[in-house]
């Protein structure tokens, strides 16, 4: 194959792959404004009817609210626990550290379906009735590894002896944690919280097993797919969620980068050398 062909091949590969990824989402947006219950071309005309019905459907809005509540609660708990684990494994070399890392990261590699069944069995064994609380617990489990990874990356990138410097200056262990470690990890914690929230918000498999009488949004949408007439409402909702998720993810990523902005290393001293005359220090007050 000569280069030109290869180049046009990779070009078309890119176009097709992108189309496969984003065309369905684009169609989703388009159909949410289409004045027909069937999701087929040709389009029948512009309408905001589906959005209107969406905001009138009490059940649906309730399930959105449930998902938000589960998302916030599970993300808060996961961020707190995950940050503690990250600090422990990054900062301290204790026996069993490897085990802690492995256990914390495990949910990343266990299929959610398996995890869902396992938790379902566990909850029924100890007679905990299924509810939004059980879903929340499940989401805490899957969110902890995300938080640990995001926060640990930040802690590892942090200059190693900042905490020693704080103690050297008189801060106790807790003082150091609250004045140095956590403030520096904070942007990563917010990013971890947002990532956890989006994960929880659209998580279906675990929620499907663990949900009680009150559905979360993905579970509710799934249950509605049986009624063709309501499909466009679900489409409209999906379009809205799509926009909200993109905004949230962009914000989380921005925060993560903002947090990781490297402090400029001790370079560029050459310029200073030119400005700096070798003359002795003059003090106004005197520090000693």
């Amino acid at each position, binding site marked *: 194959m000569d280069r030109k062909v290869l180049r046009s091949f990779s070009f078309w590969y890119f176009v097709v792959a992108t189309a496969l990824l984003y065309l369905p989402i684009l169609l989703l947006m388009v159909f949410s404004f289409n004045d027909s219950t069937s999701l087929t071309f040709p389009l029948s005309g512009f309408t905001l009817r589906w959005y209107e019905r969406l905001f009138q459907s009490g059940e649906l809005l309730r399930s959105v609210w449930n998902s938000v509540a589960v998302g916030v609660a599970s993300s808060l708990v996961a961020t707190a626990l995950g940050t503690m684990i990250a600090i422990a494994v990054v900062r301290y070399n204790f026996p069993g550290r490897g085990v802690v890392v492995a256990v914390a990261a495990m949910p990343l590699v266990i299929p959610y379906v398996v995890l869902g069944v396992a938790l379902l069995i566990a909850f029924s064994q100890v007679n905990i009735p299924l509810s939004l609380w059980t879903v929340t617990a499940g989401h805490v489990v899957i969110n902890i590894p995300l938080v640990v990874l995001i926060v640990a990356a930040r802690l590892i990138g942090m200059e190693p002896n900042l905490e020693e410097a704080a103690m050297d200056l*008189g801060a106790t262990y807790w003082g150091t944690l609250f004045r140095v470690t956590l403030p520096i990890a904070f942007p990563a914690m917010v990013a971890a919280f947002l990532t956890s929230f989006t994960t929880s918000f659209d998580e279906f498999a675990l929620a499907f097993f663990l949900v009680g009488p009150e559905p979360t949004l993905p579970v509710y949408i799934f249950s509605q797919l049986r009624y063709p007439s309501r499909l466009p409402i679900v489409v409209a909702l999906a379009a809205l969620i799509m926009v909200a998720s993109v905004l949230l993810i962009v914000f989380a990523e921005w925060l993560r980068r903002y947090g990781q902005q490297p402090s400029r290393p001790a370079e560029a001293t050459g310029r200073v050398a030119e400005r700096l005359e070798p003359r002795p220090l003059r003090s106004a007050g005197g*520090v000693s």
Partner: protein
Amino acid sequence: MSDIAVELRDVSKTYDGARQEQSVRAVHHINLAVRAGEFFTLLGPSGCGKTTTLRMIAGFEVPTSGEIFIQGKPMSHVPPYRRPVNTVFQNYALFPHLTIEENVAFGLRVKGVPKAEQERRVREALELVRLPNLGHRRPSQISGGQQQRVALARALVNRPAVLLLDEPLGALDYKLRQAMQFELKALQHEVGITFIYVTHDQEEALTMSDRIAIMNQGQVLQVGTPVQIYERPVNRFVANFIGETNFLQGRVIEVHGNRCVVEVASGVPVVGSTYDGVQVGDRVSISIRPEKIRIHESQPDPRPNLFEVRVETVAYIGSDTQLQITMPHGDRLRVYDQNDLSTVDESYFYAAGDQAWISWRPENALVLKN
């Protein structure tokens, strides 16, 4: 109050490895007494245990054995945040999430110093290091040299009894280093705080220190003023590590008080000085610094340690000319001949292959036990 600021008594530190043979003996039975108000330097090659020693004084490492005293008080159960010392870290370790002012105020804030006093002392400290106008910037927005000054201000503002500095100039370029050496010394004089300074740069140590401890492989080999260290090194390692020197190997054949005669080859006696109590028959090294050897174009009057030699290489470096010469019995020596005449006349200078005479005074040849 005693006039000893920091004392290390028989302090050792072994870092445990995963297995016995992986553990590292970083510091080995060292004894030091740093006087109050002194500029004291720990000098030694990489890995000799300087940082470890400093970290034990700061409280970040616990000695495996021995005891550290600061202002006469034993420190074994005192955490870093309650020791009257502050550290300037090699990489500065400024808090990236705080402004320069907040960085400097950190120590005062955690100790609950009143706000007004905090502000005054922070301002004074920043003026002391000549950085009065950068207070609202972040550490990432100032240069390396400025970060270094902030680190200094952040430590000094707490008025510690002892300031620990671990290669604080290591990250700066040559010119800035020299300027800062001068400033640090002036600053220490001004604030009167005891400085314990770590470096592996001998020139830096010689210019700044009141006293120097030479370390190697976890041990302190010699403690003394720069002059003592340079002029009276106690062994081969110190003589070689500080400045440049030539070594001649030989056997002692005569001792008269501090003077002794060493045979460096059969029938070639060298007269030197000893402070080591060497005995007739000992195998010794003679250390002769290159700038202490005189070179003569023509045969001078008879004198001790006069040798006819051959010039092997000549390097003109401006302030002096550095020559390699070979002695009749084969030993080679480096000789620094000061350029005390301004000329461009080529014939004035030695050339490779020339014949010449060298000599040195017996007090300039230091006889050291092997």
